[in-house]
């Protein structure tokens, strides 16, 4: 409830601010105009919404799988830790847009170039947080498992994985929030569809209302994905003592 109230408050502040300060509508439109524009273009927007959501979810899913695999690899091999980890870090430091021709060359203008950008955005937080989760595992439990004859695989399954779960979810939550930004950027690198494209074109047309309906929907999508992950986390960690209150 307080969240809803808070959102309403923000909305009111926006509307009032836009009216009071007379900001050009193509920079910050009035919220009411945005909502009207959203209503007018409802069908188009929902089509683009679905496309961007698809890119984000696909990229997020792939990142989750490979992020965890990378974390596992880092955790289990000293060499991987010394090679993969720096590589992952470096991948984050590269300005993607500078390499857009390469992205397009490799992944084309279809959905895969967008998914690739989403992966580049979301892989990192998942891998790093999961790897740190593995490291935070209680060594005493690991020792106990060794005395019971548990091999590497069993120790991973029964000790490292449950221990890394909270870290994994922290990473996945962050990834969910930024995945939409990745998809948007991917669409900007080239494409015909999606809310990112919609906002880009609207922005080139100085249609502030259209830009902001796109931005609002993108934002809502990010929050939505975040909440989905949050719900899964709640369920998965329901019985952890200091997670979820």
């Amino acid at each position: 409830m307080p969240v809803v109230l808070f959102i309403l408050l923000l909305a009111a502040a926006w509307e009032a601010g836009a009216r009071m300060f007379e900001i050009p509508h193509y920079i910050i439109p009035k919220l009411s105009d945005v909502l009207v524009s959203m209503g007018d273009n409802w069908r188009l927007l929902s089509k683009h919404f679905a496309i961007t959501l698809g890119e984000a979810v696909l990229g997020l899913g792939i990142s989750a799988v490979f992020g965890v695999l990378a974390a596992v690899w880092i955790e289990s091999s000293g060499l991987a830790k010394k090679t993969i980890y720096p590589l992952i870090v470096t991948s984050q430091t590269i300005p993607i847009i500078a390499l857009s021709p390469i992205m397009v060359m490799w992944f084309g203008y279809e959905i895969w170039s967008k998914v690739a950008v989403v992966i580049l955005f979301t892989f990192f937080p998942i891998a790093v947080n999961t790897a740190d989760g593995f490291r935070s595992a209680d060594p005493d439990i690991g020792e106990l498992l060794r005395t019971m004859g548990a091999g590497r695989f069993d120790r991973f399954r029964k000790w490292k994985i449950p221990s890394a779960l909270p870290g994994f979810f922290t990473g996945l939550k962050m990834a969910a929030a930024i995945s939409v930004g990745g998809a948007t950027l991917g669409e900007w690198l080239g494409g015909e569809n999606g809310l990112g494209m919609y906002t880009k074109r609207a922005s080139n047309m100085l249609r502030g209302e259209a830009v902001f309906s796109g931005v609002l929907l993108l934002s809502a999508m990010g929050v939505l994905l975040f909440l989905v992950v949050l719900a899964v986390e709640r369920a998965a960690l329901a019985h952890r003592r200091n997670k979820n209150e």
Partner: protein
Amino acid sequence: GSNGSNKGADSAETELTVLLDWYPNAVHTFLYAAEEQGYFKEAGLKVKLQTPADTNDALKLVATGKADLALSYQMQVAISRAEGIPIVSVGAIVRHPLNQLLVLDSQAIHSPKDLIGKKIGYPSIPLDEAIVNTMVKTDGGDPSKLDYVDVGWDLIPAMSTKKVDAIIGGYVNHEKLLLEKEGEKLIALDPSKYGVPDYYELVLTASEDGLKKNGAAIKKFMEAAARGQAYTASHPDEALQLLLDQQNKEFPLDADIEKQSLAILLPLMDAGTEPFGSQSEQSWRSIIDWLKEQGQLTKDVDPAEAFRNL
């Protein structure tokens, strides 16, 4: 790869991927007209239009054969060739500068030399600086006293929020129209009137290899495009409607703006007695010389090799 023939049901059709310079707008009407009127099909072509992130990407993709044709700029083609990117212009689409210096009417700026001491916004393209420098110098001002601000992507907000006094990099058929629609009065100063050679704003490019392999198809493409342009010139409203209809499925264009835009563009695209798209060596030589003069070319470029009239 997209060149080569389509092995599908209609094996006679040659598939061509064309990268636009920007998202579809009035300047592309001739392409949509050619498509919708069936000119491409009649020429045995299957044309796929794509919007890339920017034209630099487009040039590189054409050069590597990832696409067959790209709409680009004459100056960009010259620079590409200097950088060893094997790109050839196969047609001049817009034959005169659209990129003009835009000034708010309220600023009391009437000619380029009035810009001394003012802030000029430009979109991270050093060429734009060279254009304004030449204009000011020709007008009798000292270019070293100009104050440039790189405004990245956002030309219009930069000016409307008074961060800069003038912008270069905006088009008279787009940025100017949009700003005027917002109620601003604008003056546009044409570079070709102030010492910059009159150049082709938009050209269609192919790669050297592509031209060798696919020359025939590209020639057919240009012919179909010329028919599209002819149709557009004679039926501007109908032709524009074809574009709008196509685009409204993806993104609603502003019909008003595009209509005005097309009205501005049509005379600038008109090759007169020459066939649509034809280019002169003179134009290429003068722009290359100017670029060299401005230090924008790292290597010499042979004007004759930069273009091909098919």
